């Protein structure tokens, strides 16, 4: 090992706390990069592998009823690799252990041949025997949530008739990775599951023998999805086709996409923050080290080392720190990435997990980390290269201070000299001071930029469930019913008030843009399920025309007064042109609303409803649930309050993990910046501070000087941190928003407060660590030596 390398090692050992603090910030950058990209890639690959192995379909279509004979015609559509027809129906369940009414999606599996698409991944047991009317396979999460084992039985109302079904196995399916029931926010495995039955049995139950109600297609590579959808819609139009759609509109797939998009958004914001802060820390520390080692630099050059060799020596110092940071970052990133992917896999019930350790991620993470360290070092190293040996060996010119305000000002305010020292020292190195403030501000911003999400979610919940959807249950009928069904609902036990609604699937067009949505028809005077205006206050449904949710209006680029075209995906599949008469605020999904009678007129039907929103007396809910469980008219009953409780529970679990991660990250930055600043400041002013001790200043008075410097930086950084954090939050909102939901940007004051408390706390800890060094200043040494 060369002498310079030995010096390098000793320097690192001597400056280990500072070097380690920088290494941690670099590590956080590398780790968040590996974590974000790693988890994203792993999940994408896992999903892709699952889709591939279990032949997840590309096109999906539901219809009323079509004869099996047309399956051939469908299979002959150009670009279709295989087509599978089946029966898919939502039905009410009566589960022994669940008080609330539950539902399941019943899906048929062929009797005689293997499934061609969306293959089941059997987790236990076996498939139902062909021809058996009561045997079913249930989705594994649903089975687990209800403690079903092989042989367990439960009751279901299939097409108005109660049946007892027996579990023969549990399975997973690529089609229902995220199994969300209607009106769901997150999966509720206790109250919603997937049930697979043999086709013959399910067909018999729904009078669909020799017919099907759902078809899925696998397309050949490179085939046009749009063309296939158009052809399929053409074929199914005669049979009550509800409009075919691709994976984009497939619930499970779309939710996974949104989640992946969020992961991607996060992995783009955090790593650059850490790498920026680390670069600045490297610069700060290295500049000071070089200043202290001027004479050694001069000596090395005088001995015949080239400027480049000496410069490289100091660059190596930065790179060595980066290597330590990369090692920690790779370890932490891989471990956290694996943990996070596993967490996701469990949440989504993937049957297996492809944790991708793409070497490229590590190369990229290592590369950018080294680059950040090198970028931080470059200026300091350039100074080393440029320093002539003769100049280097003489002590640096004394720091020149300037007075910024006239003497009278200081005298007038009676500012203590110790405070004057603080301000002048900070002003003397404005770049360092400003970048330190920026560094601490970034710590604050990382916290603001992550902790805001929880308050925003609460806000979204409040708007959605307390202002708009105020019902505590929504009954959705098996098929449209006339108004008396509404009065029946009103007379259910415990029901305080009820409102009818109608839901009609349509394709909506504005210019070249189209989306597949459902129009909700609501009474003009709706008071339970309300629509909100831009100010989040309830507005009256316009008597005519269509009101679009803000998100849908943006996608369609439609505004009030524009005409939009809707293609009704039911009945006669008419197209109609409607004026946009309102824009509705809302965060979940893409929605369109119409006045209920107007919607019925559009459908050329009388007073017809798809379901009823209820407000019931929770004191009588047992009675109500008992009745609902056995009602033959409904196939799904949403319980908004239960959904909310589930959602909050899941949120709480994630909350703890997320807060731990982000708080740690914020603290690493805050600690790294404040500690390095304090050490450098102490190294510069140690002599002065020791002199003050000699002059009779107490330890506390002397450390107060350095600590006030840190306090000034830290406090000045707060508002800036809040502002940058708000910006991060805004950027994340842009990354998070999808067609499934939008996140409102609401940063509560408590978020700013907590971010500041955490950063101030870490600053205080690093300040106190440095304070111990001030207490141990050698008073005699300082008098003997010239700086």
């Amino acid at each position, binding site marked *: 090992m060369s002498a310079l390398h030995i010096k390098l090692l000793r320097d690192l050992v001597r400056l280990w706390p500072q070097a380690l603090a920088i290494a941690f910030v670099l590590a956080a950058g590398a780790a968040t990069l590996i974590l974000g990209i790693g988890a994203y890639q792993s999940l994408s690959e896992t999903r892709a592998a699952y889709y591939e192995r279990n032949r997840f379909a590309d096109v999906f279509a539901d219809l009323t009823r079509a004869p099996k004979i047309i399956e051939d015609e469908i299979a002959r559509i150009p670009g279709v690799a295989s087509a599978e027809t089946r029966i898919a129906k939502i039905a009410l369940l009566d589960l022994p252990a669940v008080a609330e009414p539950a539902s399941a999606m019943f899906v048929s599996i062929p009797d005689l041949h293997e499934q061609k698409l969306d293959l089941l991944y059997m987790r236990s047991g076996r498939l139902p025997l062909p021809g058996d009317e009561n045997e079913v396979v249930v989705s594994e999460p649903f089975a687990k949530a209800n403690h079903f084992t092989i042989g367990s039985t439960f009751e279901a109302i299939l097409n108005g008739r109660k049946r007892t079904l027996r579990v023969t196995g549990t399975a997973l399916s690529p089609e229902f990775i995220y199994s969300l029931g209607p009106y769901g926010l997150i999966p509720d495995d206790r109250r919603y599951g997937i049930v697979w039955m043999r086709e013959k049995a399910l067909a018999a139950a729904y009078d669909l023998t020799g017919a099907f109600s759902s078809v899925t297609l696998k397309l050949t590579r490179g085939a046009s999805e749009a063309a296939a959808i158009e052809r399929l819609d053409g074929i199914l139009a005669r049979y009550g086709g509800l409009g075919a759609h691709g994976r984009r509109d497939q619930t499970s797939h779309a939710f996974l996409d949104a989640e992946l998009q969020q992961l991607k958004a996060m992995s783009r914001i955090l790593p650059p923050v850490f790498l920026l802060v680390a670069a600045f820390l490297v610069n700060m520390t290295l500049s000071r080290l070089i200043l202290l080692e001027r004479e050694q630099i001069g000596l090395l050059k005088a001995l015949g080392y080239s400027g480049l060799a000496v410069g490289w020596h100091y660059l190596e110092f930065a790179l060595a720190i980066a290597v330590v940071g990369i090692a920690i970052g790779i370890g932490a990133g891989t471990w956290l990435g694996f943990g996070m992917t596993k967490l996701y896999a469990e949440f989504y019930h993937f049957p297996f997990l492809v944790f991708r350790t793409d070497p490229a991620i590590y190369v990229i993470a290592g590369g950018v980390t080294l680059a950040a360290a090198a970028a931080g070092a470059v200026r300091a190293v350039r100074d080393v290269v440029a320093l002539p040996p003769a100049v280097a060996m003489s002590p640096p010119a*004394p*720091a*020149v*201070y*300037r*007075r910024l305000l006239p*003497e009278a000002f*200081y005298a007038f305010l009676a500012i*203590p*000299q*110790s405070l*004057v*020292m603080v301000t*002048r*020292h900070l002003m*003397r190195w404005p770049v360092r001071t400003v970048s330190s403030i920026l560094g601490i501000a970034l710590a604050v911003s990382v916290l603001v930029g992550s902790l805001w999400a929880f308050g925003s979610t609460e806000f979204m919940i409040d708007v959605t469930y307390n202002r708009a959807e105020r019902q505590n249950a929504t009954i959705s009928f098996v098929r449209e019913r006339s108004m008396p069904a509404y009065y029946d609902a009103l007379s259910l036990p415990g029901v305080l008030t009820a409102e009818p609604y109608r839901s009609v699937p349509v394709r909506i067009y504005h210019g070249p843009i189209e989306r597949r949505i459902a129009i909700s028809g609501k009474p003009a005077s709706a008071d339970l399920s309300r629509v909100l205006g831009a100010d989040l206050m309830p507005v009256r449904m316009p008597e005519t025309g269509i009101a679009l949710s803000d998100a849908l209006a943006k996608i369609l680029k439609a505004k009030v007064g524009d005409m939009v075209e809707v293609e009704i995906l039911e009945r006669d599949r008419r197209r109609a042109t409607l004026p946009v008469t309102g824009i509705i605020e809302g965060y979940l999904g893409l929605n369109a609303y119409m006045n209920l009678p107007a919607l019925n007129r559009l459908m050329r039907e009388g007073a017809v409803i798809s379901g009823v929103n209820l407000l019931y007396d929770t004191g009588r809910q047992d009675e109500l649930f008992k009745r609902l469980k056995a009602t033959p008219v409904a196939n799904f009953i949403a319980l908004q309050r239960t959904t909310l409780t589930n959602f909050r529970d899941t949120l709480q679990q994630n909350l703890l993990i997320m807060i731990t991660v982000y708080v740690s990250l914020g603290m690493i930055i805050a600690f790294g910046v404040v500690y390095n600043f304090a050490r450098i400041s102490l190294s510069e002013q140690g*002599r*002065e501070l020791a*002199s*003050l*001790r*000699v*002059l*009779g*200043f*107490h*330890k506390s*008075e002397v450390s107060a000087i350095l600590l006030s410097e840190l306090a000034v930086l830290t406090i000045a950084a707060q508002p800036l941190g809040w502002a940058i954090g708000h910006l991060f939050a805004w950027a994340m909102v842009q990354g998070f928003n999808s067609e499934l939901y939008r996140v409102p940007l609401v940063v509560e004051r408590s978020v700013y407060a907590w971010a500041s408390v955490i950063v101030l706390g870490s600053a205080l800890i690093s300040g106190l660590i440095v304070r111990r060094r001030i207490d141990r200043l050698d*008073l*005699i040494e*300082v*008098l*003997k*030596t*010239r*700086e």
Partner: protein
Amino acid sequence: MSQTVFRTRDLTKVYVTGAIEVHALRGVDFEAAAGEFVVLLGPSGSGKSTFLNIIGGLDRATSGEAWFTDHELSRFSDRELTLYRRDHVGFVFQFYNLVPSLTARENVALVTEIARDPMRPEEALAIVGLKERMDHFPAQLSGGEQQRVAIARAIAKRPQVLLCDEPTGALDSRTGVLVLEALTQVNEQLGATTLIITHNVAIQDIAHRVVHFGNGRIVSSNLVAERKPASSISW
């Protein structure tokens, strides 16, 4: 004889670094009266700085006694030593030890702000002849001027003792004389007991008494028969 300000009995100091013991002081008996101007001479490593540090409250003796008036310094806690330095001792060092971010006046104010009965900073600077340059930063002052600021800072609290370690060590003869003039003037005006460490034999002529250190002990202590004004010496 006026009141005794410093009195030490058998003062020893041993520095232990690893297995090596360095005996810096090997039993020093010393007394200084109020207002006395004492020059401490001796080669490097003879123990004079260690002695000054102990009676200045910067360091602790290994054994023996060190009294300031009727206080035993070795019984003081760290906090009491700090208060002792704050209230009673003025220090002047070879390398001035001024705070570079403060002007001359502010450097003096640094001390007057915490002292019990200080003079105004301007007054202290006037005594050392620096009233005109009191708004300059240390970097804008010559070495002699910086040292005079240090003296002003040391005397502004009206200390009972003024301890100077090589105050002219970094200065040329002409500037050094100006500093010595300031010190003798302060000694006379304020009556502060003044101890000056120096290598410079020429300085002994301005003292009341000259104490020679050698090998951790006081080798000799002689009264100066004919005291000269600082302006009359040179080296």
